[in-house]
């Protein structure tokens, strides 16, 4: 099996599967300006968040780590930071510049008008795209690849076709020295003890259990009902899921079967040792994928039983379904179907190989449907209100 993909080698030794200029809005009030700039400049990609002012403590730290993490993802060739004023621009652009990546700034209050900010931003972005476009793809070992695994719109098929097939693909990548990140803390509840047993050390296992406890406390403090009592949901039960452990085991399958190497905070990059990691994130797909991309995942494989169109702007998102009815209804939403596992006698191994091959193709430049259609959104986890 191929051990390489054609990627963009970066100064820090990591490799991108895309080479775009990220137009990052550092503050919600400049999101529309950043969007206009990204609209004008081909070869750029928009990164926004709906918050950004007057957030404190850990909330603020997560936000900066997420924005800078997405900018430092090796899929990004250079960065334009758009903000209201220079200090807020520098809080994001500073760490990016320190990483050695080319970064330019548009500070609205220094430029003086909306149209001038759009004009200046577009000029800077054009220059960055021009410079980036001289980079060529070259053969890069698969060990440079970090895969994020995601599922949404889960149904009866998720745990028996899509997720276990993605797990086979994840194992193939891990065998090549690559990295796989599983996320969505609420989705592992009920199976956390089983996952903790796969940890490489007691410390890692304990950290995983701690993540789950913290997410449960956060849920209770936010006014949610008990996750353990309200799951599986009525829909889940109708689809045949009987217990929380069964539901969560089906979700965890998509990360493969290898030892758990470490537990990451939201948007935290794995510490250099390849292997399987868990990242603590909320369950909604946009937030989860933002955490994965900021943590350095160059590609995401997203299983959906019932359908869910969203993708990450930085990490191309391969849509997979294992539900034959869903696939028949909307084949042009899925980059890979493994629905023959249910309807045509396809083995999980064959499904895993199909996903793995698509992942290699996408890593080398093949476009995903969501990339072509631009169905992307970044959203950063919020731990508390802005004031």
């Amino acid at each position, binding site marked *: 099996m191929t051990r390489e993909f054609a990627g963009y080698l970066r100064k820090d030794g990591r490799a991108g599967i895309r080479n775009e200029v990220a137009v990052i809005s550092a503050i919600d009030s400049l999101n529309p300006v950043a969007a206009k700039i990204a609209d004008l400049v081909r070869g750029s990609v928009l990164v926004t968040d709906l918050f950004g002012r007057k957030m404190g403590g850990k909330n603020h730290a997560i936000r900066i780590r997420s924005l800078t993490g997405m900018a430092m993802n090796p899929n990004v060739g250079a960065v334009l930071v758009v903000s209201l004023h220079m200090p807020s621009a520098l809080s994001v652009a500073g760490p990016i510049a320190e990483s050695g990546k080319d970064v330019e700034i548009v500070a609205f209050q220094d430029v003086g008008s909306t149209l001038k900010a759009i004009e200046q931003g577009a000029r800077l972005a054009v220059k960055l795209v021009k410079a980036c476009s001289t980079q060529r793809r070259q053969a890069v070992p698969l060990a440079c690849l970090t895969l994020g695994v995601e599922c949404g719109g889960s149904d*009866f098929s998720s745990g028996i076709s899509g997720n276990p097939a993605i797990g086979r693909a994840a194992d193939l990548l891990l065998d090549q020295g690559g990295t796989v990140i599983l996320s969505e803390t609420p989705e592992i509840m009920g199976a956390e003890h089983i996952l903790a047993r796969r940890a490489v050390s007691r410390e890692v296992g304990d950290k995983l259990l701690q993540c789950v406890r913290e997410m449960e406390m956060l849920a209770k403090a936010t006014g949610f009902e008990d996750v353990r009592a309200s799951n599986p949901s009525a829909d889940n039960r109708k689809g045949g899921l*009987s217990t929380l*452990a069964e539901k969560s085991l089906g979700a965890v399958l998509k990360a493969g079967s290898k030892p758990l190497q470490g537990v990451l905070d939201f948007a935290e990059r794995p510490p250099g040792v390849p292997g399987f990691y868990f990242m603590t994130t909320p369950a909604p797909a946009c937030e989860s994928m933002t955490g994965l991309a900021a943590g350095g995942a160059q590609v995401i494989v997203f299983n959906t039983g019932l359908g869910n169109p969203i993708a990450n702007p930085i990490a191309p998102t391969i849509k997979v379904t294992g539900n034959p009815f869903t696939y028949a209804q909307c084949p042009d939403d899925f980059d890979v179907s493994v629905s023959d596992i249910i*309807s045509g006698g396809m083995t999980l191994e064959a499904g895993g190989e199909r996903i793995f091959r698509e992942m290699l193709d996408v890593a080398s430049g093949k476009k995903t449907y969501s990339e072509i259609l631009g169905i992307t959104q970044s959203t950063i986890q919020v731990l508390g209100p802005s004031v």
Partner: protein
Amino acid sequence: MSSKGGEVRVLMIMHPADNVAVCLRPLEAGEIIQVMHAGKTLSIEARGAVPLGHKVALSQVARGQKVIKYGETIGRALKDIAAGEHVHDHNIADYEGVTP
């Protein structure tokens, strides 16, 4: 987990240690399904209708015993479950909630 000679698979067993299988189409009461499990051909007679995506017992599971899917314990039997019986929240519950 493999199907023979291109036959349409009816039951899917996720792990050799499992004592339940997932129905890939609805089962009617009295239907007899052959399935390969841990190297042997099992003949399972559905003891009632089982909806698509739901589980059926591959062997008898006594009250309090573990229900195994994915090679892991997903719950315990709330009552004796016969081979071929529909396995769901009416006769199993989360591991921790049941006294054996």
